[in-house]
């Protein structure tokens, strides 16, 4: 940009929208009060992020301050123009407004007993919000802190975009690394110095990559194809080795990794149904349950009416078969239905299956609410290893096979048929695509993968209960593929790590998991419907007509 255009934009954008800044600050205040009353600050106050300085609850509040003040600073001027030092003032103002609203909440909370309604409006929350210093001093401190934080966020808006991105990444990295450290290595957060180092490290890496990354990529692209393939092979082997070595982290991390893995597996399956074929299936848990129950019935010594007592490996193909058959059978009645009806009907199917497993009617066969226990392990672990560590290899094998199937299908004739159907059923049919076959194939493939997930789930826990198979599992998988990007295979991995892995690490967070999923679904649909790692074609579809 030349100097003349700079001055021209500056002249054009002299109008400063202070009312928007105040508005953003007020919204931020509402969000902060919400976070407090919903109980997140208290619930996460026990988990230390930086020793002696910050807890996870405070990090969430900090995030609200920084994000909203940054937004406010951006809104002071139009989209691209910079307001200069005034944006620091705008940020500080927004931060101050957030603090004032929190302070008002504290003052009101001490006069009136809000606890009759809001169970989290407790003295503990007031103590946390006043930083443990009592009402007048604590509140003044809160306001000063809010203004400072807001000013910092406003200052962030002044930085050039590359540096800004690097600093933001560094800021996000600190709590994540600290949580990982606490959960996996039984640490107690990180020290202040450690946090600073982590921040500096990630900022530097990110900044460095943004300056040399493009060049590096160009240089790789310029290499002869043989060397490129070699590089790719090295990359993939590193990933493979890393995946194989994961259980070495220990029994507890392995359990988390297994759970994430099962969700990746199911996500890959649902991705075929929802992502490729565009059929919103909310009853996905039905096949998960059927897979798990097939394993339970065929292997558990508790089942007396069918005394087969197979091993897990013998039962697995049968579970897959059950998945395929039930996927097709449940698919037939919904063939003619359009998107939203399909969602509700499949949801109904999922609930019917669970209610039937739960009822006394089938209790003699599947155990009713007592479920099925004593399901054998798939592989006896070697000396010194836990079941969960060994199970990872089965999960990994499942993921690799599923990813292979999904990738191959995606670029095959069937995959193209699915995508054509997703974009427009009528046109697809006019092009000679057999809708019945194509839809049923999507349902059956997805159901088979879900059944495998269920089979692994059954042997992971060695006992299954109808309660494990509620609608929330379907929603969970759906959130995973939406965050990652519908139709995108690497997206499933990212989605599962973010939405299943992180909450597993943050045990106190379990209560807010679905709250966050809901918010994430809404937010993603509003702001980034194509997901974090979008599939190219999907992105085009979703942003169709926006440029026009």
């Amino acid at each position, binding site marked *: 940009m030349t100097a003349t255009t700079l001055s021209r934009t500056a002249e054009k954008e002299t109008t400063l929208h202070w009312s928007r800044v105040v508005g953003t600050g007020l919204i931020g205040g509402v969000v902060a009060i*919400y976070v407090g*009353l*919903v*109980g*997140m600050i208290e619930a996460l106050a026990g988990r230390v992020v930086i020793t002696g300085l910050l807890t996870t609850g405070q990090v969430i509040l900090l995030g609200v301050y920084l994000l909203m003040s940054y937004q406010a600073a951006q809104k002071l001027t139009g989209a691209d123009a910079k307001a200069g030092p005034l944006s620091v003032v705008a940020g500080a103002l927004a931060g101050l407004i957030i603090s004032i609203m929190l302070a008002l909440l504290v003052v009101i909370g001490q006069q009136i007993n809000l606890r009759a*309604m*809001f*169970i*989290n409006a407790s003295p503990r929350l007031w103590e946390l919000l006043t930083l443990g210093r009592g009402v007048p001093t604590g509140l003044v401190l809160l306001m000063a802190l809010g203004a400072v934080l807001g000013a910092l966020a406003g200052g962030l808006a002044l930085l050039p975009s590359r540096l800004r991105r690097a600093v933001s990444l560094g800021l996000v990295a600190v709590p994540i690394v600290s949580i990982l450290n606490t959960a996996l290595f039984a640490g107690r957060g990180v020290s202040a110095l450690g946090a600073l180092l982590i921040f500096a490290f990630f900022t530097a890496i990110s900044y460095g990559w943004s300056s040399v990354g493009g060049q590096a990529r160009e240089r790789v692209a310029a290499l002869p194809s043989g060397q490129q393939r070699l590089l790719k092979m090295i990359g993939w082997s590193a990933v493979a080795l890393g995946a194989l070595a994961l259980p070495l982290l220990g029994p507890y991390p392995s359990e988390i990794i297994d759970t994430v893995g099962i969700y990746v597996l199911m996500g890959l399956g649902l991705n075929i149904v929802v992502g490729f074929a*565009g059929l*919103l299936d*909310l009853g996905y848990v039905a096949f998960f349950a059927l897979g798990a129950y097939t394993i339970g019935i065929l292997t558990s010594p508790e089942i007396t009416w069918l005394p087969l007592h197979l091993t897990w490996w013998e039962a697995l193909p049968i579970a897959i078969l059950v998945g395929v058959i039930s996927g097709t059978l449940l698919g*037939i*009645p*919904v*063939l*003619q*239905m*359009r*998107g*939203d*009806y399909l*969602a*509700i*009907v499949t*949801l*109904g*199917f999922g*609930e*019917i299956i669970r*209610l*039937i497993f*739960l*009822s*006394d*009617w089938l209790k003699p066969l599947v155990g009713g609410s007592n479920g099925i226990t004593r399901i054998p392990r798939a592989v006896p672990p070697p000396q010194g290893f836990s079941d969960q560590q060994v199970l990872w290899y089965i999960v990994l094998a499942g993921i690799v096979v599923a990813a292979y199937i999904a990738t191959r299908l995606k670029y095959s004739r069937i995959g193209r048929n699915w995508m054509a159907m997703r974009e427009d059923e009528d046109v697809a049919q006019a092009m000679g695509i057999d809708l*019945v076959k194509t839809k049923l194939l999507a349902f059956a493939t997805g159901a088979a993968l879900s059944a495998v997930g269920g089979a692994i789930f059954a042997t992971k826990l060695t006992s299954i209960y109808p309660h494990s198979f509620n609608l929330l599992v379907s*929603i969970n998988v*759906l*959130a995973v593929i*939406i965050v990652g990007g519908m139709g995108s295979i690497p997206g499933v991995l990212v989605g599962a790590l973010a939405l299943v892995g992180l909450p597993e690490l943050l045990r106190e967070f379990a*209560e*807010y998991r*679905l*709250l966050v*999923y*809901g*918010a*994430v*679904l*809404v937010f993603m*649909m*509003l702001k980034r*419907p194509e997901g974090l790692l979008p599939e190219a074609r999907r992105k085009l*579809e*979703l942003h169709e007509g926006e440029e026009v």
Partner: protein
Amino acid sequence: MLQNLRRRLSATTVVMWIIGLLLLAMVFWGSFQTLVSGKYSGRVWLDLIVFGIAQGSVYALIALGYTMVYGILRMINFAHGEVFMSGAYMGYFVATALENRGTLDSNLLLSLVLIVLGAVVTSVTIAVLLERIAYRPLRRAPRLVPLITAIGASFFLQYTFRGFFGSGVKGYPEAEGLKGTITLFGLQLLKTQVLVIVAAIILLIALYTFVQRTKTGKAMRAVSEDKDAAALMGINVDRIIVTTFIVGGSLAGAAGVLYSMLFRQVYFLTGFIPGLKAFTAAVLGGIGNIAGATMGGLFLGVAESLFPNLVLDGLGIPAPYQLKDALAFLLLVLVLIFRPTGILGERLATKKA
């Protein structure tokens, strides 16, 4: 002749019809067995039917919200069950406050008005916020997008309420004046059930008058017929859509109070199952159709109350009431397969828009 028939019936249709006929045969066989065995007296059946009507009229009130929004936006407002739940919660808080002051027992009518008012205001606020924040920006997006948003909003609201008010089940206070039974036309009926039915009828009539007789109602019908043409006729489509959410929300809020009077409890998942059932009712009656939603709600309420004892018991299934939710969903699936138009509606489930 046979060839002609074969051309018209594909294999899947035949399979579906066979399944349908089998189910119908099971229904008849089950009811026949139960009635022949004479296990339940006429008194039991009467109670079940009255309870069914009371519960069905609540479903009808919720179903109207689904139907009206669907009629105008062609989207399923999945979070409508939570709008209903929020009303039930606020009703609980107002009712408890009134009970603590003693107003609930001393002045029943005033208390009821206050409870319903609180519930309606809360539900309307949430419905309007939903429309403004979550649905309006997505009006021109592909159809799956607003649906996923609605599902997300539904879970967000459920767990927000859990975070705010705790996960426990809250028992609704019971007013002195509503305890016991009343004798009407020689029948002994529970007072709460009668109140619920009467209130629902009044609300339904009010809604019908609003939609058919007022200018806003006419504009609503015009918008649901054709949004663009309505806009050309000078109707403010955005405002009509908000009005729809307000009307749907207030009915849901009132339904929340009535439902809690029947079941005397409320918790953060209260809205989920009734929401799904009300959707079923809307589909049963033909979605987008106001009279249909009312009939669908009543039918579903009675069916759900009668079927477990009437049919499943006859088939020898133990503890049949455990399967009553499964029955409601099965009914939804069957209706969508065999009569996607619903009892009164136009055919919408497959194509159109």
